[in-house]
């Protein structure tokens, strides 16, 4: 197991370096600079700011300086928030995205898995078609439609929740639902497929033959194998969930990382773009490693290899 982790982490180093290099040159090749404004800025002022942030140095100097800064976690001041660094921004906004992601994940699993199990056990009945049609709808309806609808219904009309903000615990519900329902739809479909496959297997028949109640057969014997597709889907999904969703964060005014991720690119904040991309990449790598580990734990066949 330890060897497995070491190999996977070793593989991630060249990946991250490649991502760093591509991002570094891509942000610099985008037209427009961090200091241009709607009201034209005097050239000498742009020049002085470029000098201050070190953008006038040769590109290779900037490349290695920025690399060193990321390796030592010693980030430079940002152009879009003078006085703050990428470390400050990620440090204050990632916990928010993480929390929202966890709530959304709970929503996804709480709605998704039972629905999928139910649909699989009642295959080709109304109890299968109805939730699966809903799930299809959930996948097709983008968050920017669901979010405002939920806000309008529960916030403006019913007045149960605030329509935006991230202050009280109750402010978590609408964004978590919006983000989670989309994933719940996927989880439900994947659970259904996984369960259908497992329910037809010999060991399930054996369990039934032993006279076990159907509830135990489904929840204890079949579910463990049936959620495998969900587990492998969760890796990238988890990284996507916790790294923040620009759309949901904008609709509900959630101060998460997703907004910075987009805003940094729009405002040409080179340093913030690099740091958030690398952070996101590292998250995806970690999540995938975690999923592989989880699959090994769940599936004894993989352990022997």
């Amino acid at each position, binding site marked *: 197991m330890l060897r497995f982790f070491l190999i996977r982490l070793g593989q991630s180093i060249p990946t991250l370096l490649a991502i760093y290099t591509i991002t570094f040159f891509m942000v610099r090749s*985008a*037209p*427009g*600079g961090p200091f*241009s*404004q*709607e*009201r*034209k*800025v*005097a*050239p*000498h*002022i742009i020049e*002085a*700011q470029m000098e*201050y942030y070190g953008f006038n140095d040769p590109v290779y100097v900037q490349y290695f300086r920025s690399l060193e800064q990321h390796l030592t976690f010693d980030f430079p*001041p940002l152009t*879009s*928030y*003078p*006085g*703050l660094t990428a470390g400050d*921004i990620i440090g*204050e*906004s990632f916990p928010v995205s993480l929390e929202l992601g966890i709530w959304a994940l*709970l929503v996804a699993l*709480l709605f998704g898995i039972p629905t999928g199990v139910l649909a699989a056990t009642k295959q080709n009945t109304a109890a299968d078609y109805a939730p699966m049609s809903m799930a299809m709808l959930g996948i097709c309806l983008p968050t920017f439609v669901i979010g*405002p609808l939920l*806000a*309008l219904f529960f*916030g*403006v009309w019913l*007045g*149960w*929740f*605030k*329509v*935006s*903000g*991230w*202050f*009280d*615990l*109750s402010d*978590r*519900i609408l964004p978590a639902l919006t983000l989670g329902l989309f994933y719940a739809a996927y989880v439900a479909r994947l659970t259904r497929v996984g369960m259908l496959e497992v329910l037809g297997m010999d060991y399930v028949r054996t369990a039934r033959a032993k006279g076990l109640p159907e509830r135990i057969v489904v*929840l204890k014997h079949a579910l463990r194998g049936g959620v495998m597709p969900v587990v492998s889907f969760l890796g990238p999904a988890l990284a996507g969930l916790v790294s923040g969703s620009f759309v949901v964060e*904008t*609709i*509900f*005014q959630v*101060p998460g990382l997703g*907004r*910075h991720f987009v805003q940094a690119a*729009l*405002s*040409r904040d080179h340093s913030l773009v690099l740091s958030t991309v690398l952070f996101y990449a590292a998250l995806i790598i970690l999540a995938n490693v975690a999923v592989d580990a989880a699959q090994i734990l769940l599936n004894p066949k993989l352990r022997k290899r």
Partner: protein
Amino acid sequence: MHFWIKTILLSSCALLLSSCGKQESRNSLRIGNGAEPRTLDPQQAVSLAEAHVITALFEGLLSEPSTDDALFEPGIATSWEANEKLTQYSFTLRENARWSDGTPINADTFLSSFERILNPQLSAQNSELLFDIKNAKAYHMGEIKSFDQVGLSAPSEYTLVITLEQPTAVFLQKMKHWSWFPVPVHFIEQKGGLYDIANPWASSNDLVSNGPYMLDRWQRNQRITIAKNEAYWDAPTISIERVEFYPFENTQSEYRAFLAGQLDITEEIPSELKDQKLDGARADPLLATSYLLLNNEFPSLSDPNVRRALSAAIDRGKLIKSIVKTGFPASRFTPAAMPLYPLGDTSPPPAPELPRELVAQINANGPLRLVVSNRDVSIAVAEALQEMWRRELGIEIRIENMEFKSFLDRLDNGDYDISYIAWFGDYLDPFTFLGIWQSESQYNRARWENSSFDKLLDQSATQADPAQRLETLHKAEDLLTEQMPIIPLFWKSKDYLVSPHVRNWPASLTDIRSYKHVELKH
């Protein structure tokens, strides 16, 4: 499994219950504020979202008026007088002005503040607004090393004398701008270098300020809370204890927050609702003009007749009615809302007939490129213009739309033929509109030079007699309308929502206002 399900169900119930104890915000004014401010440093801030917070935190020599008709009222200065030639202004400061940490404010505070914004190291964008001060520009450009040569002096502890480059009639108007606010030099130095661009003083929660309010907490991308500053000299007149600024990038989200009672004032109305009669909707005229920026160096557009014909072919009323849904058709560049600047006869000169050969020649040069950003309604406006010009003149246009920074890059490099953009005036004088089209102005992206226009504006700057000066500015305006290096489209207005609880919310032509006299009635 069962244990987990129970835990999750229980925690969801707890969540639901906690939402019931909603807190009502008492005596705090909640304002939607558009984009998230980049900084709260008055000398480095450039956007209105930043200025909305800064004008509550800081106060300059003069302050925003509390009534709609006054131009300014005393701030840190109690009285002021100008010499006869209007080249020197002397201010008497109040002796009870303090920073929020108790440090007294005197004339030296202003000297060191002005020294900071003009210092080339800080490279402040708005330093340009202080160039009326004698030698200020030379100091900023590094031509003069000693600040003593700049026209600022403090003959006594509470007297500040400002000497100008030339007579400036609207000086008091201009210096109301936030770039003229004092900054807490002692606090800035405590947090880092005085001229360090990235000094974190203006984003720290213990920010020291001198205005009616002080920073309570800045929760990035959530809200900025400011609380009444008890050290403020006029603290007893302030009735609202706290003001909260919420950044809303999405106007629909902001509108829902207003409907749900989470906001008292919005920054905007979603563009698709601007023509509906919403409760609490206000449309305050702004000193701002949307216009078409023309590249006057482009051969087809270097002919004033072509530019006039393009302008005459635009049905501005139709554009407003069907697309932008706000504002007024512009017959000249300076908005009609400009105080003390009568509109006069602004019927544009009769549109010339464009000979067919000329149109053919323009189209032969390839379609004119109309470069727009992908923000709000720009693309819809561009498409309507394309149609109007094709129908009325037979001139073909190619629309190129792009993301905002790429768009700015195209403008700065002159890589466009026509573009759609807006200009916001800084102060209540036509010069803030006309001045940008002088050949030497840094803001002149139109690549247009006209020596008679330059001369008229230079002349106006030195005219001490207001009536004479306005006459000169009118001449310049007429010349601009006749030559049409840019095509004015609309005079903008600020469309937003104000809750009925809010009293005395002043209209403002520059969208900068004092919150001192605003009250909340529940």
